[in-house]
């Protein structure tokens, strides 16, 4: 069995590619990759991925809003959601609010992000 199916999104294409590398290293396949929150939400609902890795600050819809909308639409705790944030106090107390499973600060190490996503399978 593969490591799971992932939907990723970041408005910066260079960073998005890094996320994709990390997600693949964690053993997941990328089923959709987007530059904005709304498209990511559409695929997160339509494709039923196992993993969601999103930049928090995106035009249209923030990563946190996407996660909240996905959680509201489902009654289980799928998919495993990772939010990436460059905000100053991003890591202090916003995780609960958005119900994300993990927060990663920008700039992130590809290795660390891969570890966070891979960790999902063990938890």
């Amino acid at each position, binding site marked *: 069995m593969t490591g799971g199916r992932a939907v990723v999104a970041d408005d910066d294409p*260079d960073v998005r590619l*890094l996320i994709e590398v990390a997600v693949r290293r964690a053993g997941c396949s990328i089923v959709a990759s987007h530059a904005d929150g709304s498209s990511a939400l559409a695929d997160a609902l339509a494709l039923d991925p196992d993993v969601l890795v999103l930049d928090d600050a995106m035009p249209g819809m923030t990563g946190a809003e996407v996660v909240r909308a996905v959680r509201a639409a489902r009654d289980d705790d799928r998919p495993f959601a990772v939010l990436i944030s*460059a905000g100053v106090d991003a890591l202090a107390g916003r995780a609960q609010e958005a119900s994300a499973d993990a927060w990663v600060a920008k700039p992130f*190490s590809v290795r660390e992000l891969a570890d966070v996503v891979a960790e999902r399978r063990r938890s």
Partner: protein
Amino acid sequence: MRTRLSLAFLDTATPGVRQLASAVALVVALVALAVIPDIAVEVPLVLGASVMIGLATLAAIVLPWERWNDRWTLVIPLVSLLAFGIFRLGTGGATSVFASLLLLPVVWIGAERGRICVAIAGVGTAIAMALPYLVGAQAWVPQQGVRVLFAPLIFAMVAAVVNELAAHGRRQVAQITELAREQERLLEELRGAEGFNRSVWNAIRHQAVIITDTCGRIVEWGPGAERLLATSRHDAVGRSAVEFLQPAGSEGSHGLEFESLLTLAEQDEIADGLEVRTSEGDLVPVDVTYTARLDRDGRALGYILVAHDMRQTREAARLKDEFVGSVSHELRTPLSSVLGYLELARDDEAGLSETQSHYLAVADRNARRLLALVGDLLFVAQVDAGRFPLELERLDVRRVVRACAESAVPTASAAGVTVSVEVPEHAVEARADAMRLGQAVDNLLSNAIKFTPAGGSVTLTVAREGDELRIGIADTGLGIPSEEMRRLFTRFFRSSTSTRQAVQGVGLGLNITRAIVDAHGGRIDASSVEGEGTTFEIWLPALGA
């Protein structure tokens, strides 16, 4: 209103007015002559005297006396005196009932300035009285000598009394005029001060100045208050100041007593967190300062409240926050790419030459330096904005210090500096944010290593002293010149040692360190001996053992 005081008989009345008395008296005398049958009249003399009085009166009225010396006006009473002398001659001479007419010009002459006028009046009267004998109309008898001397003497005395009264009157008028002038000047000054105060008052348009009595009732309402609160002075005076002020967020409930407003302002000098409601119903955030209003004896008359519209300040703070947030994002995102791709490139070690690996390591190190700098700048901006989140927990400070020392070991050994830790066996605890406190110790430790030459040492100590705990970072480095110690914690300050030794940095580390220590309710001390070393000490409130 100009006060002008004058004595009609003295200086300001025109010669025409003064001569009026003689002219009227002559007319009355002529009427008496016509009515009373038994008076002996020599018509040519009476007629001549009447013509003289008439001409003198005419001259008094029409001639431009004001252009000539004052003394020339004396011609009129002197001519009148002579005319009345002739009139007396024409109506019986020494037995005339009209001798008293002489008194009128005598009074005029006596009222003029100077004692000489008394003499003029006496001599003039004597000549007028002696006329019958001078012209030979009556025979001179020695007894008449008494009349010619005595009567003028009495007239001269009357003139003297009038002269004295007039002089006295003039002095009084002068004094009163001087007083009036002084009053006028004071009034002018007062008007000037009033105008000045009024213009200052009207110039305060961006602060609402509200003046109250001791109970908070409004007694004056500035133009700034009219503008900010859109309430006219007329509608505001007499109401209570707290009607216009309310604590922020206390929508509807009117929770502010005047006393608590004063207490609020007394504690911080500025009462913030208040709002005013404009007549349009908008709530505007304000800071309020107050000053007691005292009379000359220091008794309280009331208060002066100055409410400052904080909308612009708040907006500026919000924009700054927004800017910090956006800079944070915009700088970190490209750094994410730089560091991320460097990581990917370095992961592929097999494909890289040693030189290439070295180049990538240098790029990585510098990207991380840039990242740290961005972090420091954002941190400083957060401190400025007063938003400086601390996650306080019960913390064993030894643990933080040991962790800092361990992570500094690679840098220290590369620089040939020994790092040692001396901590007590039992826990030393404080309520602190582990990450921030670690950042503070890291800053001091990395400075110590940077400024210590190879072969030197840095010692970290933790100790409890009374209610406080002390974290010491002592090095055997270059030291800091004493004249620079005072500015050490100033933002962007770089010591002469750091510039001379080309040590990298922008001068934020110590400033941030102190902000962190301050936020923990602690303090930081520094002591240094140039050439021997520097010791920094962080003091924090300790938790009970």
